[in-house]
């Protein structure tokens, strides 16, 4: 167990952060297409899930992404006032503010969760935001929540050996 803890904190020059992004169909996804058509080059760490509106991003998606091993989550939506569905991006902003506080209290650094307004014409911004986020996360190092959960599981197992049928943290999470 101790060796694992040590491994977790070991700095790794080749570390590549894993970022899950949720881009809205109308602005940010279109902007990322524009970045592609314009052949702008950016870091390959961000993998995009397309949704119709940033308002569709359920807080559970973000928690699930972190729990499954994401080092960062990026959300891209239309600029305030520009939402294709009038106000979905405002709804996202509210959730973002609340969730950020919660993630902060869980020890997840602020840089790991980011909301950006990127309009359909801002291909350049897709590039700068992604590169910037990757740079920052490289400095922070891996988050590795699944591993931490495994470690916690083992600790729990040790503590609860006298108790019958201990729940693993992963099982507990699955009830969330």
């Amino acid at each position, binding site marked *: 167990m101790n060796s694992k803890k040590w491994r977790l904190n070991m700095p790794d020059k080749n570390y590549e952060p894993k970022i899950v992004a949720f881009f809205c169909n109308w602005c940010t996804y*279109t902007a990322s297409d524009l970045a592609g058509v314009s052949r702008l080059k950016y870091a390959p760490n961000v*993998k995009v899930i397309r949704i*119709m509106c940033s*308002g569709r991003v359920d807080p559970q998606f973000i928690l699930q992404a972190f729990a499954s091993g994401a080092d960062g989550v990026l959300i891209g939506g239309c600029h305030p006032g520009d939402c294709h569905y009038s106000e*979905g991006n405002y709804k996202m902003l509210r959730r973002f503010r609340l969730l950020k506080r919660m993630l902060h209290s869980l020890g997840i650094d602020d840089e790991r969760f980011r909301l950006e307004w990127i*309009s359909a014409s801002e291909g350049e911004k897709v590039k700068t935001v992604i590169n910037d986020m990757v740079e920052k996360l490289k400095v922070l190092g891996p988050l590795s929540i699944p591993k931490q959960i495994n470690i916690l599981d083992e600790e729990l197992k040790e503590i609860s050996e006298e108790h019958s049928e201990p729940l693993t943290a992963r099982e507990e999470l699955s009830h969330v």
Partner: protein
Amino acid sequence: MFNSNGNGTPKIGFYVCHCGHNIASMVDVEEVQKFASTLPGVVVSRDYKYMCSDPGQELIQKDIKELGLNRIVVASCSPLLHEHTFRVAAEKAGLNPYYFHMVNIRESVSWVHTDKLSATQKAKALTRAAIQRVFFHKPLEKKSVPVNPDVLIVGGGISGITAALTIANAGKHVYLVEREPTIGGHMAMFDKTFPTLDCAACILTPKMSAVKSHPNITLWTYSEVEKVEGFVGNYKVNIKRKPRYVIEELCVGCMECIDACIYKEAKYPDEFNQKLSKRKPIYIPFPQATPQVVLFDPETCIDFKSHRCKKTCIESCDRKAIDLKQVPEYKEINVGTVILTTGFKTYDAELSPQYGYGKYPNVYTSLEVERLVNASGPTAGEVVTKDGKKPKSVGIIHCVGSRDQKAHKWCSKVCCMYSLKLAHLIKEHTGAQVYNFYIDMRTPGKGYEEFYDKLMTEGVHFVRGRVSEVTDWALVPEEENKLTIRVEDTLIGVVRRVPVDMVVLAVGLEPRVDAGDIRRMFNISCSNEGWFLERHPKLAPVSTFTDGIFIAGACQGPKDIPDSVAQAGAAAAEVLSLISAGSIELEPNTASINEKFCSGCKSCIPICPYSAISFNDGTQKAVINEALCKGCGTCVAACPSGSIIQNLFEDDQIFSEIDGLLKFADIELEEMEAEHA
């Protein structure tokens, strides 16, 4: 037989596209294909040169029929480009099109990354996410809505006029809304048009009167769109008709009232003539204004200020058309489609102070000179300086506000040509020496280069160099009482001082000041510069990202008259094709409530921007009106019990995507650890 309803075990077909070298040069497609074949549920995994080609689509169709596939995943370009293509292909083979999912490995991977190994890894992760996702796909029914055949066109310049006439001639009803008191736009201000030197009025005014008299066109000038609601095929638009204080139906445009006005002399700046002449508080913008109806300017009319005018105008009107108590009229119309042709504005030359506009009276903008050379303009076609003399020499400065890091970076496209035209007209009217100061001459277009050649033989001078300054500070006697243009002639490599009597600034084109408001109202996008954004720069130049809203003319970017007319025709054709089809299919991505889990908390109800959710008091559950739902999914994310489902974006589908993206990360991690060990 194959399983088309998706029940039973998913049998997934995976196809990865080379896209020639576009994808294959950066992503190891064979590796992706091999990787996909090992994933659970995948029955067949193939790579092919061009998946979107007919043979590519046939490959999928053959596999659906022969192997009984019931899920299709294609890794190629952006879903915004070819999702529809592959859905249709799947449908033709008897599979519900919504069992298809697309992986973007071109715009999101091969075109934006530089390392083949990490690009391939990313493509694999995205592939895995999609393959896990399609397990949860369900068959869906397309939603079809009727298209209202009425059309709204906003902006009555040459683009709006052309589009309106094309659609009206096809027998469809058009509402043409124009903010100014007359249609005609910028083209109505011009004297001649390049390169043929057709008289602008001669070719435009017949079209303007055709608009006015067309039975299928409702023309509302001096009106503005206030509110837009709805979606493709069914827009509800509110329009404000500003008061002219003249009853449009009664006025015949005899202009007796203008003569009868208590002001004997015109004393207020005439906007149509670029404030080079004066008008009265009651006026008509120009002789061929359409409609031929006078209007009052309440800012300057005495009666609006003091209520103590003798109202000679009212007395003079034997048709009793003047109504000083007129109030704004509000109209609500239902249309199926909209064309925006709101045009441009010219660059404010005072923002480039080195050219002295606003400081020296004989520095003009090109639009002002257009009015000066126009026979119906402020000087009846005489090109004269402010002191009434014919200029002996005129300097035309190109690229004012264009191709300038301090103003606009873009080329305004029309200035070189209109400067040539003005050079010709000024020379013709005054016989003056005309100097063109240009950075580059840009004259691509039919007959344009020939026009440039013609001007050179006419003895117009061309000096290559960006003008640094226009000044009245004379260094030599020849410069006394003249404006001196200081410029580096980059062809001969010397700094020159050219004294002239008149300076013309070829101001560039820029988006309208309120383009941002219009864009928000109609829910479309703008480019960084503020021009309306087209759906695709090459393949959908008049469509926008909002279905049923089209753009044409200079609101999309600087454009000359032929290009604007061509775009207007294209937009009209797009509109007519929607109307002809009669109905349009919408994405079935609407939300619905799973009543079993709905706790009746009502959290979703205030969140819906379209008021599509109501509460059923009987069952104590929320109900979504599918006809009103636009499929944003905001309510789905807000539901605390997870009882709202959005088609095509279900929770399970997105969770499996997240899992697929990151599970792959886990594998990489394990591999790395194994290496470390």
